């Protein structure tokens, strides 16, 4: 069901003062009631705080989202301290569109269920080898095999983090029945490991469940409970489950209004997990997730991650300055690979680009690997990636008569690359290739491995000028020039916002229900430097993060 909320119509700057929402109660403390599973839940205690419900100015989609493989591994790490990232080994891979969390792509399957069980079994077995860790998770030392209280302690403590809410009495009882397995094996720890097994494959862990609670006078939307808000915040800012401190806020009813949520999010952004979360967001957006775990490729990923950290968190600079940075973080090996000066002290460190022609993130090897094809770069593919990822301009498929899989050169393999590509800009192909190839040729001085080159591969007679053009935007030379050009373009700002929203919402294409929120975010940051940290706080504390539209049949 898609509705046009009357209040959404009002979701314009005139309706707001700064980032505040006029729909708040006068005292700013209005709160959604906070029961574990929302309306009609049956047992566990409510979160604290005022149980009255504010009237939201806007709401958007919500519902069931499965943890992506990356989120799952982060969650296992933070739940039981297992950093082996077993999901990446066993779970079905996520489609990258470009983010890994588009819930329309998530299909339950035997492979998913079997893999979740496998991961859970192995994690349980590992914990059996560390009985003290099981006791730490339980917060008690069992007095004997039949210590039901200690097992219930484990269920209550672990379940709260795994399900991101208190367990109901029925759920606690069901998990407590696993004590019988421990008794049979004459080991309390066997029962405890079975509890972990269960929780790691429980749908309440695998999925983000949002039920919400009724909003008086508005039957088409619900207010998320504080527990559900904590989960949204956590996966947005940390890509993992909430920690105890965040859950404590939910329990105390301190996530029920904009100010409280903003305060919580501010605190969360000080945490290391927010750095890791933003690294992963950028790696998905820019298309180098999983792009290197060892050797020079790992150094390249570290280079880009370091820039993300510096811009977003350390300097709190303009988000788009990622593309214009004059320094980069290099290992000595990567500096040598690029032909740049080594960092001081022969240790990884920041190095000035100087007059090298490099500049910003588009000079990074992790990103320049885009579109390597037939043993060389593909200016078309690089241009396509930049158009789609950074300008949010999808390139339509090639028309009849063009086979994008054949290598360039065709009948004239001895010619220069730029001449081969010139023919693509003619006739019916030209309308699309003119959008892409000019961008790619502006980066042609850099090979797919990130190294600088003056000529086409194996063709010294073919000089590469590095001159490029973003059709409709302007001319540039090299990655530094492209970065400057992008910074001056409103389309790139809008696209960055859209990509962030895709990531937050788990939706590849925002629809009419999402559009007002995007519009409002854009207007809120119109004219500023687009500080990503501020942007995240605005999203985190928005009505859209705390209210959702009911779906069909709810």
């Amino acid at each position: 069901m898609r509705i046009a909320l009357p209040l959404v119509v009002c979701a314009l700057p005139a309706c707001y003062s700064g980032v505040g929402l006029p729909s708040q109660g006068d005292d700013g403390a209005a709160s959604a009631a906070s029961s574990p599973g929302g309306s009609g839940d049956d047992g566990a205690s409510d979160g604290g705080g005022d149980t009255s419900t504010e009237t939201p100015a806007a709401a958007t989609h919500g519902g069931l989202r499965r943890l992506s493989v990356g989120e799952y591994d982060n969650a296992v790490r933070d739940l039981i301290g297992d950093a082996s990232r077993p999901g990446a080994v066993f779970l079905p891979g996520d489609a990258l569109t470009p983010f890994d969390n588009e819930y329309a792509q998530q299909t339950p399957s035997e492979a998913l269920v079997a893999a979740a069980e496998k991961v859970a079994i192995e994690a349980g077995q590992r914990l059996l080898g560390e009985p003290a860790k099981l006791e730490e998770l339980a917060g008690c030392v069992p007095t004997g095999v039949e210590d039901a209280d200690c097992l219930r302690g484990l269920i209550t403590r672990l379940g709260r983090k795994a399900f991101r809410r208190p367990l109901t009495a029925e759920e606690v009882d069901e998990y407590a029945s696993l004590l019988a397995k421990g008794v049979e094996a004459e080991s309390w720890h066997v029962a405890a490991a079975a509890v972990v097994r269960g929780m790691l494959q429980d749908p309440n862990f695998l999925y983000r469940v949002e039920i919400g609670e009724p909003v008086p006078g508005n039957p088409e939307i619900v207010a998320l409970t504080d527990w559900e808000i904590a989960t949204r915040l956590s996966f947005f800012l940390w890509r993992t489950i909430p920690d105890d401190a965040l859950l404590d806020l939910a329990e105390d009813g301190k996530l029920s209004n904009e100010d409280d949520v903003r305060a919580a999010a501010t605190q969360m952004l000080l945490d290391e997990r927010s750095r890791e979360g933003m690294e992963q967001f950028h790696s998905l957006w820019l298309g180098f997730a999983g792009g290197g775990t060892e050797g020079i490729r790992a150094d390249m990923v570290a280079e880009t991650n370091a820039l993300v950290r510096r811009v977003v968190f350390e300097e709190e600079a303009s988000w788009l300055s990622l593309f214009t940075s004059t320094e980069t973080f290099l290992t000595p090996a990567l500096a040598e690979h690029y032909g740049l000066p080594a960092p001081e002290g022969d240790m990884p460190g920041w190095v000035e680009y100087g007059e090298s022609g490099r500049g910003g993130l588009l000079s990074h090897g992790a990103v320049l690997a885009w579109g390597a094809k037939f043993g060389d770069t593909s200016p078309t593919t690089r241009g396509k990636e930049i158009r789609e990822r950074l300008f949010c301009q999808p390139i339509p498929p090639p028309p009849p008569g063009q086979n994008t899989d054949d290598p360039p050169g065709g009948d004239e393999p001895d010619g220069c690359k730029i001449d081969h590509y010139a023919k693509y800009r003619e006739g019916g192909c030209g309308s699309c290739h003119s959008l892409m190839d000019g961008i790619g040729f502006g980066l042609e001085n850099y090979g797919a491995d990130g190294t600088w080159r003056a000529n086409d591969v194996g063709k010294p007679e073919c000089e590469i000028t590095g001159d490029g053009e973003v059709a409709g935007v302007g001319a540039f030379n090299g990655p530094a020039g492209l970065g400057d050009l992008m910074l001056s373009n409103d389309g790139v700002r809008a696209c960055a916002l859209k990509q962030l929203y895709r990531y937050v919402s788990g939706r590849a294409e925002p629809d009419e229900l999402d559009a007002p929120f995007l519009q409002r975010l854009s207007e809120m940051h119109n004219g500023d430097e687009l500080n990503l940290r501020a942007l995240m706080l605005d999203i985190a504390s928005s009505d859209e993060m705390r209210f959702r539209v009911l779906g069909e049949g709810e």
Partner: protein
Amino acid sequence: MGRVFRLPRRTFLRGAGGVALALPALEIMAPSRAARAGGGASPKFMTSFVGTSIGRNHWPDDDCCGPTYPGDQLTPDNEGAGYDLKHVLSPVGADPWQYHSGFGGNQPAFDVQKELTVVSGLKVPWGPDGDLPPGGRTIKFHYCTVTPQISGTICSDYSEAPHGPTIDQMVVDAIGGGRPALAYRVEAKAAGGNTSAMSWKSNGSGGVSRVDPVVNPRLAWESLFTGFVPPDPAQAAAAAFEIAQRRSVLDLVSGSAERLVARLGHADKIRMEQHLDELRALENKVNGVMPGSAQCEMLTDPGGSWPVTPENGWSNEELRAEVLSDLIHMAFVCDLTNAASLMFGQWKCYLKMGPAIGWDNDLHGYSHFGGSQTGIAPLSDAIAWHIKHFARLIRKCMDTQDVDGVPLIDHTILTMIFEGNVGYDPEADAVGVHSTENMVVLVAGGRGLGLNPGRHIKTDEVHPAAVLLGAAQACGVTDPLGDIDEAFTGL
């Protein structure tokens, strides 16, 4: 929780909506025996997919990429039995052979020609979106070359999802008795989502649901051999305890899913019901008992962590292919399923096969003669690598007896399909490798199911799905396959 065979929701809905409504519930639920061949052996069916077109050229001539692409490296020149074996089909023959690259020296030959039929001259038709022929594809090649073949439904968009269940699911729906089809993929690092799957099943709500393939051999192994009890008493006791524990935990987890289903809105409820279906299928597997059979045995644990190399690098796909093939074979021997799919690689497969066949570049690059390579040799070697694993599986089925004492291959039909072949490419309006003309389907076995294998059959533009449907009908499928209601009967 006792050993209860839990009925998948979609099975129930299917039964409730059709003639099975009047049957006792247990008849719907229990593994079917109706389709068993004489002597108690049940039919088995496998579809495998190779993520490239079949190239044509003379090798070692360097006239690749010319306008006519002469010299198919797979399709025999001769028809009937005793057809000629070109390089790509070398593993099917009786003599050791070598890759053109010479990499790895002599390669095994499996002497399975008498069981392998090559069906050529096939065609997936095409047309403009909105006016596609039955089982047809839009002219955009890669996206739409898999689903028309395996589902018989049109592919007119970029979702790649078929509009009906795939052939492997048709087989288990017809004769599987609730036991799910196996779905494996060899290529470890694929795109994910619809692109990397080749099996879809009815979701009970009028649509289909993707069946993600298992890629990790250790997971596949453990999932398959859940019910085996070791002969050693101590190990057997430990195994029994483990099974009981899994049962308890899965029962608990299913209970959680059931409670959630009751509280969700329509769209979320469908997804959680699907999840619950899969949980129940897993419970059924855990509750099951391995049938006793002289040759049914638990294979050696493949062990290891099976790391996945980023960026389509080589992730030991040679051993993955062997282990996954062995598991399909033993699943058939032990009668654990009636159908399987084995996706060697997704369409437009970028698997870097150098460590297997000695050529630089990736499978997609081979098929377009890219990089520094010349000629058809790398592509021929790459397809021969796929055929090697296919022939190995055929041989294993020939060398194993079914429960009735006859070779397993007699009641088993193994098929292999490809993305396309050289012919007219409507996308380019020229001859090229992006064509779905001149396609080939390999069909092995099935002698005991009425097939007459070991021949080369040339057809006149029969749809590949019709060939798969003909093979599946021999296994007991009676419904059409998507738009394809006329099966190829010449097998």
